[in-house]
């Protein structure tokens, strides 16, 4: 019977450890799930523009929203607030960022698209959010974004919003930069923002 107790306990302990792993497994599963069903507002991959399929019959309004994370001393704005595009048509818009502090700051913009359904069809061919941006004190930078709204966009979506939030990389990850900056980079690259 003591053997039976030990066997049961061992099995259960292994089960508990496996569930601890499952908690971590939820992290990639969550991303995969969001990517497959196109939720969470994460935008699609970097794509080559497919100019053959421009849907000239309809127009979709794309709005541009800009934010900076709390206490992030940059001014960040888009030059156009909204724009009407044909699905399939490559469009370029420009953003301006100004570093209002007295130190060099590295920031990263995290994009999201609403409604979440639209994020599946919103593709960028060029974006300042693909890499980190560094600004010297007082420096001003104009940054382009080139995007295509996929021609397969469902008819009922007439409007979508592209939103960027700038986060400071240099400050928040002071500890991280030495140890796991590579991880963060990998993380970001894997996500193909």
């Amino acid at each position, binding site marked *: 019977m003591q053997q*039976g*107790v030990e066997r*049961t306990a061992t099995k259960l302990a292994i089960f508990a450890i496996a569930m601890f792993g*499952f908690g971590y497994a*939820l992290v990639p599963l969550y991303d995969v799930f969001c990517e497959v069903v196109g939720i969470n507002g994460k935008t699609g991959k970097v794509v080559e523009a497919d100019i053959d399929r421009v849907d000239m019959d309809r127009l979709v309004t794309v709005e541009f929203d800009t934010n900076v994370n709390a206490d992030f001393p940059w001014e960040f704005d888009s030059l156009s607030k909204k724009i009407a595009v044909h699905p399939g048509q490559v469009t370029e818009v420009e953003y301006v960022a100004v570093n209002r502090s007295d130190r060099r700051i590295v920031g990263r913009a995290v994009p999201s698209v609403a409604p979440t359904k639209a994020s599946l069809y919103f593709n960028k061919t060029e974006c300042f959010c693909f890499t980190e941006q560094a600004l010297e004190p007082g420096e001003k930078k104009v940054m382009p974004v080139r995007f295509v709204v996929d021609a397969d966009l469902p008819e009922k979506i007439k409007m979508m919003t592209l939103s960027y939030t700038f986060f*400071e*990389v240099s400050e928040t990850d002071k500890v991280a930069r030495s140890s796991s900056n590579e991880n*963060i980079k990998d*993380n970001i690259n894997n996500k193909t923002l």
Partner: protein
Amino acid sequence: MSEAVAHDDHHDHKPTGIGRWLFSTNHKDIGTMYLVFSLIMFFVGGAMAMVIRAELFQPGLQFVDPQFFNSMTTVHALVMIFGALMPAGVGLANWMIPMMIGAPDMAMPRMNNMSFWILPFAFTLLLLTFFMPGGAPAGGWTMYPPLVLQLGDGFPFLIFAVHFLGVSSIMGAINIIATVFNMRAPGMTFMRLPLFVWTWIITAFLLIASMPVLAGAVTMLLTDKYFGTAFFNAAGGGDPVLFQHIFWFFGHPEVYILVLPSFGIISQVIPTFSRKPLFGYASMVYATASIAFLSFFVWAHHMFTVGMPLTGELFFMYATMSIAVPTGVKIFNWMATMWKGSMTFETPMLFSIGVLFMFSIGGFSGLMMGITPVDFQYHDTYFIVAHFHYVIVPGIIYGVFAGVYYWLPKWTGVMYDEKLGKLHFWLSTISVNVLFFPMHFIGLAGMPRRIPDYNTIFTGWNQIISIGGFAFGLSQLILVWVVIKCARGQGEKATDQVWESAHGLEWTLSSPPPFHSFTTPPQVTDATAHS
């Protein structure tokens, strides 16, 4: 069998002094320590609730600053859930399961000792945060990032306290399953187990499946704050909503971890005082198992408002609704057990009927919130506070009270004071409804939870709620008095069977039972199996 489990050489002479408790490997002593610890934590958490109700007696800020108020709501929840409710369930399991299945003790007595003694350390860590720069956790017991990451020096203490609590409950759960699977008396087949034992097996599986996930989630918080990972940090490509998913993947089964033992207790109590066997024993077992199974597929009903796609909201709405079916089966069976029974209303029965009535109120408000479109109105208002307090206080805590009154004469050998017991029940029942029922109204009217101040139009109801709260808090002192009287042996001598119609192995032992429950395993037949 006995060499394996009779782990020490003293048979019926107990060790004495502090060593008896510190080094105890005896399931009854450990059960007692769990229950006493739980009672102490019940009053610690209760004191925090009193601070909350005192502050909310009037609009504006009276006694405490908002940061401390937030700590009160946060730590009240952590202390009550992990310190009062869970140890109470484990304590009852320790005391009763070996006696109910005809075993001499728990399967792994040393681990049992360890899983108890981790608890005081865990709560020392948690409560120490009140004296640290940055104060105690104040971002809600759900520990959502990024808010929780703003906690000061107390943060790692919170995380490690949660780790310890998880380790303790996982060890307790492994022990319970190992005991029931391997140490049942001859003839005690699975379908003859008392329902309390069944609900605990299922609870233990829920614990082993969900606590490690919580441990993982808080570890991610820890590495996010100190080691530069970005699980929940948008700047690093993470997602704060992910935490909510992981947390509630643990959090919803946790709700059933708390409530199932209470269901088990009233499934023992109601047949005894109705003088009828439990109606639909097998369906009770299957209903409990299906509640547990379904609990892993409903977590996102805690987060309908985060912006899930419609399909997700519908899935979680229907999954949530479907849990009402097995729960309805259970409520039906309890009522059918009472139907045409020769009922008497001793204190344990009163508390069990209280569970039936008031748990159902909490169940119905839960159904209301399971409806996604209306949940947007109820979310984070006092309506949800009313809902989960109806489920927890007159649902779970009343179940524990019922169990304590039911088995106290068995544990101590003397009958408790029935008059005081009934007084405890009636004062609690009146005050608990004064306390929690009006929360439905102010919640529907829009009063948000976790805020120290409120619009003056809510003043009247808040004052009634606070008065109910103070009355409920004071009523619990009666329980302490009853327990102390019994522990000192003041009261009528209890018979072995204690209750006229009590069935099951625990009632064949003397009152109080011998230090090692069954040294020779009893033979169980249909006639001697539970009820």
